[in-house]
């Protein structure tokens, strides 16, 4: 694995999918049930957040490099 600068959007997406995946796993193994009506909105909002984070990181990096 090659090292590279941190991709914070990937972190947000990863946490989103870990939470969603664990919610499904827990609902499949326990009596607690995941309310699927919430899953798709959470997915949409989460992916939107990923896009926002990606845009913020890019916009932050560009001026920093130019000003240095």
């Amino acid at each position, binding site marked *: 694995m090659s090292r*590279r600068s941190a991709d914070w959007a*990937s972190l947000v*997406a990863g946490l989103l*999918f*870990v939470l*969603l*995946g664990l919610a499904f796993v827990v609902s499949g193994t326990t009596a607690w049930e995941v309310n699927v009506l919430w*899953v798709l909105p959470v*997915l949409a909002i989460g992916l939107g957040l990923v896009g926002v984070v990606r845009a913020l990181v890019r916009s932050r990096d560009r001026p920093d*490099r130019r000003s240095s």
Partner: protein
Amino acid sequence: MVDGEPRDEARAPESAAADTSPAAGAAERELRRDDAAGVITGVAAGLGRHTGIDPVVWRTAFAVTALGGGTGLWLYAFAWLLMRDARGGPALLEQLLNRRLSGEAVLALLGGGLALGTAFNLIGGFGWTTLVLAVPLVLGGLIAHNRGVDLSRVARQLPEWLTKREPPPNAPGSEPDPAYYNPAQPWAAAPSGPIDLAVVARQSAAREAPDPDDEEDEDSGEDRERPPRPKDRDDAAARPSPRRGVSLLGVSAWIVAALTAVVFVHAGGVSVGALLSPQAAPLYLGGVITVCGVVLVVGTWAVNPRGVAPVAALVTVLAVAATTTDLTQLRFGDARWRPAAVSEVREPFELGVGQARLDLTALPLEPGQEVTVRVRVGFGSLDVLVPDSVRTVVHGRAGFGRVALADRVSQLGVGLALHDTLEPVSGSGGDGAAEEAVSEAPTLDLVLDSYAGDLEVWHVAA
């Protein structure tokens, strides 16, 4: 849609003049998604750029063929999986299959997919959805033939293209910002801390030297830290870069494959139900989603996890569908229902994709009896035949398509909702006995539902 010719003579001269850079030329030679000109994912824009056909035509083709049992939707998803990204990185399927797919092969696969969808549609009989699929297929074939593509040769070569063990292209590394290096201030890009002026002087001398041989310099530790020059970037592009993203995706694919094997062993056999039944889907698909999430978290600092997030999103949608509907009970193709007892209509009639026909003329109904019949066809057409001696209350709903009630009402469009009643025909004589027969006629409540398709209710003689 089988168009194996990259843009050449048919290319619009103005666009050719607009994009003369090497990168733009490579983008045209390769079949890549075009994020900049795209509307959703850049698939249609990329296809348009590669084939020289306006992207609007491609978008229209995807939308029109989506009416034929959703064919356009899965063709679009298929194209997204097959096409390289805007920077020329390998397509997701290229990574998974670990082999290179040429633009011609991708176009041939899309054409083959449309031909396959048309063939499947013909299984249920010839209908308007067949025309919706066949017309773009024939037009695409004619256009390709007109451009000199030998379709029979493409069909013969496709297996060879798919089995060729040529590795996929490397993912391009991130382009350094040109502003990073300032020749007038070479130390400006250095990290904070003391600056070794000897190193700066050596770097400046190396940059000003006309000697193109950079191999010797690579051995010195200082040179590894120096910012890249434009020439260095060219050299880096010429050298094979490490395959970023492939290994991580491969590891996650192996984990998912192992998880699938465990599920099959636990279920005692290989079946779709073991993975996608409402009981198994939360565990299996939840596990897959979690694996994708962990891969993305690891990818924050390690290898670029490109392509994992869309896959995880698709699996999440699939998990939602699997927990709300029993996907293993979905039916595809042609369905003919002719219930002969009221007990047979208590459960809803369901068809996932295809053509269905519900004949209620054999249903025995007593005067004054009220029976509810529910029919759900995901994508396709539905014809309901009801006897004209019964009152039929229709509640039809279609996300997209057409809803028709005998010869009286017909709606075409998006978000259709039809609530109407078909009065019995046999009692329309006007005398007292006939009016009594009408008032005591049995009632059929028809609840029809479809995502996209054609819903029709017909009165037939009892």
